[in-house]
């Protein structure tokens, strides 16, 4: 296919820098590596980080899937997928298992990913300590010295005030027992999937100019106290109204007229597969 751009839109030097930073990020799991974020044809804060990673690692034989909150069809996902398709000519899919690169906004797909796949996260706020410390200089010192007491104190105060840890999406995780990391605003439900996975997870914040990674088979845990441990969202007794799945991450849908609540899988690819009878 004849392209009007350099393959992958970014120039080769930009790709090379980003790849170098990715390697550094993989070498130090959970550490935020600064990088020179490029101008992209979409606004910063709309997935430019994930986009730059995807464009830097993608090759002509890759198959791409893009999801937004689990959905293949949302505007952000469709636009990014079309754009990458246009500047690389690679094939796209909605099937989680067929994709080699999956760019995601705030979800990890339900189906188990393999070592031949890479999951690229779009990250709005890479610094987990920002809620307790405004100064970048200070948060870097805290990471360097593994001084995370301010975060623990935040959790303590939250338990004292509200009886539980009130952090939801983007719950801070400890990577390789060393770096505190923001997993991007994925639900707590997805956090156990970050740990000891077969897949490489790459995170990138375009606006904040940071790349970080969780290499395969790395231990990751949501932080918590012995008597108030990390918990995932509870969907017990609920199932998807469309496909009947239990044990998946469900979106709550409230009917405006009747006020009734139904639930549906957030992962549209999974939901369709189950409805078609393509899995179990």
């Amino acid at each position, binding site marked *: 296919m004849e392209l009007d751009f350099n393959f992958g839109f970014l120039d080769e030097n930009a790709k090379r820098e980003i790849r170098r930073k990715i390697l550094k990020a993989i070498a130090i799991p959970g550490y935020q590596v600064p990088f020179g974020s490029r101008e992209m044809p979409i606004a910063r804060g709309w997935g430019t980080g994930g986009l730059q990673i995807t464009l830097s690692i993608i090759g002509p034989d890759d198959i791409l899937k893009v999801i937004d909150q689990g959905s293949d069809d949302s505007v952000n996902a469709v636009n990014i997928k079309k754009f990458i398709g246009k500047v690389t000519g690679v094939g796209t899919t909605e099937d989680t298992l067929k994709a080699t690169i999956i760019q995601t906004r705030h979800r990890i797909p339900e189906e188990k990913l393999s070592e031949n796949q890479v999951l690229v996260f779009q990250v709005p706020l890479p610094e987990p300590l920002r809620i307790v410390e405004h100064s970048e200089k200070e948060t870097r010192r805290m990471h360097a*010295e593994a*001084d995370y007491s301010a975060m*623990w*104190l935040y959790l*303590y*105060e939250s338990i*004292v005030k509200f009886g539980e840890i009130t952090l939801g999406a983007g719950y801070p995780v400890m990577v390789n027992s060393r770096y505190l990391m923001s997993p991007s605003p994925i639900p707590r439900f997805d956090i156990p999937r970050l740990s000891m996975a077969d897949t490489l997870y790459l995170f990138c914040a375009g606006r904040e100019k940071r790349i970080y990674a969780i290499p395969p088979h790395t231990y990751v845990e949501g932080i918590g106290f*012995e008597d108030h441990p990390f918990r995932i969202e509870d969907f017990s007794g609920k199932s998807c109204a469309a496909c009947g799945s239990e044990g998946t991450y469900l979106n709550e849908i409230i009917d405006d007229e009747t006020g009734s609540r139904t639930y549906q899988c957030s992962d549209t690819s999974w939901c369709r597969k189950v409805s078609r009878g393509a899995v179990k």
Partner: protein
Amino acid sequence: MIPVLEVKNISKIYGKECPHCLDPENAGGSICPFCHSVAACRDVSFSLYEDEVLGIVGESGSGKSTLLKILNFDEEPTRGVMEIGRGNPGKFGIKGINLDFIENANLLTLNPYRKRLLRNHLMGMVYQNPHLGLKMHISSGGNIGERLLMAGWRNIGSIRSRAMELLIKTEVPPERMDEAPSKFSGGMQQRVQIAKALSNNPIILYLDEPTTGLDLSVQARVLDLVKKLQKELKLAMIVVSHDLGIIRHLTSRTIVMKNGRVVESGLTDQVLEDPQNAYTQLLVHSNL
């Protein structure tokens, strides 16, 4: 007898240094006449023994607070040596934490991570201004818990019972545990600060002008509390003050500083009753 804490030749010079900065004959006080650097501490050495309260007195600018900041790792000295538990570091062994590196080490040259580890496990600090030692908008229990969290406590129940115990000990109404210190009176804030400093069972407690901002009756109560806790916990303490009354009340041994240098040291009674150095004589006699 082996001292708990030993410091040798601590100097702190602000500005570019020249060979004359530490000359004993410098006429200009702490400012070097050649390079105009400020020598806040010059060759300060002393030892602190178990269960002992050491006082540091001196006028404003004599370097006593800088010295305390250096000992608490808040400030880096230009040079100097600090040792804790020489010969018997195992005594301070804490479950799960390896502090073997303090053996024969100059603690002032450790990396920031190890310094913080030592500060969290072995030291407590009470600042003159509660704003420096406490987070004013976080509950008192949380403030005390912060030190425990730093030291690796991960159980809310035990953190809260420890905080409760300390608040009772420092005479703060325990039912106000979940209120922020910003709602407390000055004396109560200071007592919360003391509770926080004691939370991790330190072996050394530093007090920097602990009662200067308080009115006289509250001062007396806080001092009595400090004295009671010292006797009870057998703490080694360093009290920095310009108030000779406090020094007399709390300490057993005193060093007197002027222009960053120790000009006299000895038993507190001896120093205050029979001062030898001209400056100490002036200091004692100008006491109202």
